[in-house]
């Protein structure tokens, strides 16, 4: 007679690892643009319009935030989308970074 016996070693689940991955995907990444003294204000506005498809008013608002506060949070997105945005901003030579949202 075949008897189902419990295996000696049960497959383990590391809740910490799963949780970290889930958090990273759920909360996403922040795309931040930083101030610098070289990029022209009209140029920064133009780039925001191009990269994010924003109207002039919204692009100008973020440009002024960069200029006056030193940085502006431009988007909250998945890792892939945030990478795409930051890469586009770099192609236009703006100082942009991404970081995990807390």
């Amino acid at each position, binding site marked *: 007679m075949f008897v189902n016996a419990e295996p000696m070693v049960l497959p383990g689940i590391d809740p910490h690892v799963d949780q970290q991955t889930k958090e*990273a995907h759920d909360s996403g990444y922040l795309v931040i643009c930083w101030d610098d*003294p*070289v*990029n*022209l204000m*009209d*140029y920064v506005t*133009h780039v925001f319009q*191009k990269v994010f498809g924003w109207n*002039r008013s919204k692009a100008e608002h973020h440009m002024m935030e960069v200029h006056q506060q030193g940085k502006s949070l431009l988007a909250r997105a998945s*890792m892939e989308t945030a*990478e795409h945005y*930051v*890469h586009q901003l*770099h*192609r*236009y*030579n703006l*100082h*942009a*970074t*991404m*970081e*995990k949202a807390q």
Partner: protein
Amino acid sequence: MKCIRKGDGRFDMALDEEEWQALKNVLIQYPKTPADHHSLMSKDDQDPDLRESDDWLKESGSQHQGERKQQVKAWIESIHPVEGDGKTEYQIECNPDRADWLIEILNDIRVGCWLSLDCPTPDDLADGEWKREDWPTMWAMEISGMFQSVILKCVM
């Protein structure tokens, strides 16, 4: 330099001989900003998930600049003088894509010059204590900014 708007974001720029030579002398300096200048992460953040993407994007940036350099060379060669009223003019037709392309290239040169000059602030620039060997770089930075401003005004 004259800018004639034609609607739908299209416009013509008319440059005299001196303006065209200035634009050409700036554009042939492309690329000026090192392809690995930017990073996805800030200096304090070393997210391992992003490090690999960062390396890949830097490599892609270098390839992008190589392609652009060829495009710039071809574009300069495509612009020919037009004789009229006893003077030479260079007419540049721009649609939104061409304008964006020119602005991006001019900005690469402007930022690259700024980096070469050790990232001066506007106050540093105003002080005027510059070595003679820095003058051509300062000239290229200012001229590329001036052309950027003119094109951006035409686009708006």
